[in-house]
């Protein structure tokens, strides 16, 4: 032993070798110990993750949050645990905490599609346009673990909705054009895009998309109804009538489709600007419009207790003055008065709209005709 001690102090290399040996032995033991603990941690992490998912499925987001947090305690680096915790926090109403988690996840992987999409939703909710666009684009061009095309499309749809909610129809429309060019053969998706085009005010493209949709499934009610509504907006009442009639034949068609069909049919029969209409038919339609408007005015005057201060009085006086000219013979001799008479009828409808309720389909049709593109062109 004395010999060994002497060596200890005289032979530095030997001493270092012994220290290395001790370090290796203790490192091996420590490694075994940490491995045993890591295995236990992983088991616990998985156990709590499973419990959290069950809580989430059972719509108990608060319990899920606690369980996900516990799972993270045992596996702090686990991406899924963090992501699910952020989702559970969102569902539990802890938006700020969820946002913190998503931000920390974004710092770890800025290309994650799901993280970008969630951050985009938060930014959109808070009205932060720059961040919302940045994160939506991150989601559209980011990485998705599976079905990346579908997820990217979904992200693009959400971006379009965001633009529409903000009233930025130009941006929405340009993104829709991109999206519509790359859509799969999916009637639901095509109809959704058509709906968005309609929301953006691009009725022509919307109608095209609806037509493409019912090329895939001719009986798909939302596409038929949408096409009908869009054709109606475009002033193509004959086409609208066709689509809506087909839609109304379906049992599942709602009251709104049937009501719009009635209005469309009325508009089709009253439209004085229909292409290729003979003069006599045009006069007949204008006179019919005048008749509907006068009826509306009378009904409105009767239902109003004291019409004297109302604009109805002046409309009634004007109607009396125009009575002589509202004759087929007069209008045949004075065709320049046809449009004035129709405009007067529309004016009555517009004025009475704010004063009286209960519009008949004919009244609605006249109002629609007043705003239709063909009328405006006229």
């Amino acid at each position, binding site marked *: 032993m004395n010999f060994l*001690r*002497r060596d*200890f*102090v*005289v*032979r*530095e*290399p030997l*001493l*270092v070798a012994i*220290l290395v040996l*001790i*370090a290796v032995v*203790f*490192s091996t033991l*420590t*490694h075994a*110990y*940490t491995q045993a*603990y890591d295995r*236990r941690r992983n088991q*616990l992490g998985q*156990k*709590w993750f499973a419990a959290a998912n069950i809580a989430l499925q059972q719509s108990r987001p608060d319990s899920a949050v*606690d369980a996900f*947090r*516990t799972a993270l*305690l*045992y596996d*702090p*680096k686990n991406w899924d645990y963090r992501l699910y915790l952020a989702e559970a926090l969102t569902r539990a109403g*802890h938006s*700020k*905490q969820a946002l*913190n*988690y998503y931000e*920390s996840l974004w*710092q770890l992987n800025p290309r994650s599609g799901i993280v970008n999409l969630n951050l985009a939703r938060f930014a959109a909710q808070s009205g932060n346009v720059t961040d919302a666009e940045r994160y939506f684009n991150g989601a559209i061009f980011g990485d998705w673990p599976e079905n990346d095309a579908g997820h990217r499309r979904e992200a693009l749809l959400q971006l379009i909705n965001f633009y529409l909610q903000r009233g930025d129809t130009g941006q929405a429309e340009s993104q829709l054009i991109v999206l519509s060019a790359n859509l799969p053969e999916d009637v639901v998706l095509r109809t959704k895009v058509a709906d968005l085009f309609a929301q953006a005010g691009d009725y022509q493209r919307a109608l095209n998309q609806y037509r493409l949709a019912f090329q895939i499934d001719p009986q798909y009610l939302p596409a038929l109804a949408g096409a009908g509504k869009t054709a109606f907006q475009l002033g193509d009442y004959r086409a609208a009538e066709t689509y809506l009639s087909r839609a109304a034949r379906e049992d599942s068609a709602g009251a709104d489709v049937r009501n719009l069909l009635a209005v469309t049919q009325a508009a089709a029969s009253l439209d004085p600007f229909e292409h290729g209409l003979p003069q006599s038919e045009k006069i007949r339609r204008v006179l019919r419009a005048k008749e509907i408007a006068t009826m509306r005015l009378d009904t409105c005057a009767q239902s109003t207790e004291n019409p004297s201060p109302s604009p109805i009085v002046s409309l009634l006086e004007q109607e009396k003055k125009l009575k002589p000219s509202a004759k087929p013979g007069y209008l045949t001799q004075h065709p320049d008065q046809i449009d004035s008479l129709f405009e007067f009828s529309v004016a009555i409808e517009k004025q009475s709209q704010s004063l009286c309720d209960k519009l008949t389909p004919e009244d609605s049709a006249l109002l629609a005709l007043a705003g239709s593109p063909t009328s405006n062109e006229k």
Partner: protein
Amino acid sequence: MTTADNMPDPSIPSSSSAGSPVDSFRRRLTAQLSFDEDRFFLILAVFLGIFAGLAVVCFRITMEWARLYLLGSALTPSPLRAFLAPCLTGLVISVLIFTIFKGAAGSGLNQTKAALYISDGYIPIRTVIGKFITASLAIGSGHSLGPEDPSLQIGAGLASAAGTRLKLSRKKMRLLAPVGAAAGLAAAFNAPISAVLFVIEEVIGHWSAGILGAIVLSAVSSVVTMRLFLGAEPLFRIPSVGVIRWKELAAYAVLGILGGIASVVFSKLIGWLRPRLKATPLPLQFFYPAIAGLLIGLIAFAGFPQIMGAGYDFMDQAMHDQFTWQVLALLACLKILATTLSFTSGTPGGMFAPTLFIGAMLGGAVGTVEHIFFPALTGSVGTYALVGMGVLFAGFLRAPITSVFMALEVSGDYSIILPVLVANMFSYLISRRLQAVPILELITRHDGLSLPALEEKREEERLNVEDAMHPRPAIILDGTQSAPEAWPFVSHTAEPHFFVALRNQPPAQISYDELRHLVEAADTRALQNTEAIITVPHLHPDEDLEDALPLATRYPLIPVVNRADRSQILGVLDLADVMEAYRKSHYEFTDPL
């Protein structure tokens, strides 16, 4: 104890074998392979870091196992476990520290410091094992204590064991304990720079350049070892700090003031309770860990299990805005209470983590409230929590330098420095004003010890040569003069020595008698060319008076010269001047009136 200093040097040959070529070769070889303690000390520091790192890894895992078995695997323990585990474990700990591991009580920080200054850094291995087991149980069962201080003692203990086994000199043994302590703390807190600074501030108690290299080596190697096994993940996720506007510094100043007050309350509570508990009969003290555990269990049972254990997970949550300010403030108060109970009961475990916990909660609360009233403030709640940690560190542990570097090291963001400096300054000043004796020194005094502290040293006024020197003598001879030329100036004086000014050189000295001999011999050579002048060492006015003392004892009069022009004498110093300066300084210190 035999030290290497006392051992026979193998490089010195015995008289019987001297001279032969074989012996000469052996001598040379032995000299090459001989043990160089200074060189080996640095290598040993690295190995100590590795050993301390491994020990801390095992310590942390044991603590986690203890938590799993005692409190269950849930993030917040069930009320029954929370209520029973700390109390029953407290009883087991008492049995251990009263029977087998008598030196294992307390945090470990002061014990390490005491070992360093009282027993040359010697810490018995039984204490290390005891601290490992009892602190694991205590923290794992939910006692409001942290693993850092015990890790520090475990590291120091391992270093002591290695030094004893290697029979290092007493001087090296004293240096070895802080090396191990820094390694233990660095591995426990995953922050080597803060660990090094903390050990210098709180364990060594003075700045020592000689040991700095070894401490840094051990701290870094321990952190690397720890990360190899446990990963490089920080103990809590630090939110990004971002740019801090100058207007916001006022908000951090408020945090500093509140942190200073909280530090004082915390210190006063411990300072009041600990001596009272220590003064009670020993059999009663046996039950204190269990009673503390019971009270902590009650707090947890009442709905605040966050205060149990080190609480790093909840610090993480506080940093990420997961509590309301009311909850944060309440947790800070309850943690002060719980840590006071655990610590004063003698339960093994440290105050490092609880201090950070209190700071994080307080910072989070202040940050949240300030955001409510001033929504324009850009600093996140996490940033306030991080600054709060530093604030409590500066105010409670009174380690201002460590506190700044800790915040910097943990966040890795330089923008945190300014708010930390502002907040820490207020906290430190308030704490110093309202709590004259720092908590660690107070605990030392409770234990009847007197150990050096860096804060005292910081306040000590260092005396320089300029504080003691007296004005330059009226007569300074010119070196170009001959002795007869110089004689009329000195003949009538009673001075025994005169300075001789030399061109571009420090002054020399000549005695009255030597000068007289030259005059009598009619020596007309310039004084600077004669053998009669003698060179004397010189001093500079800014030099430490302590360094001047050995010279003053050897030379009757020492010139104090200008650093830019060494031939210019600014004053002179003798032993009487030095003694008078020290006497005056001591008088002022002890009796300011």
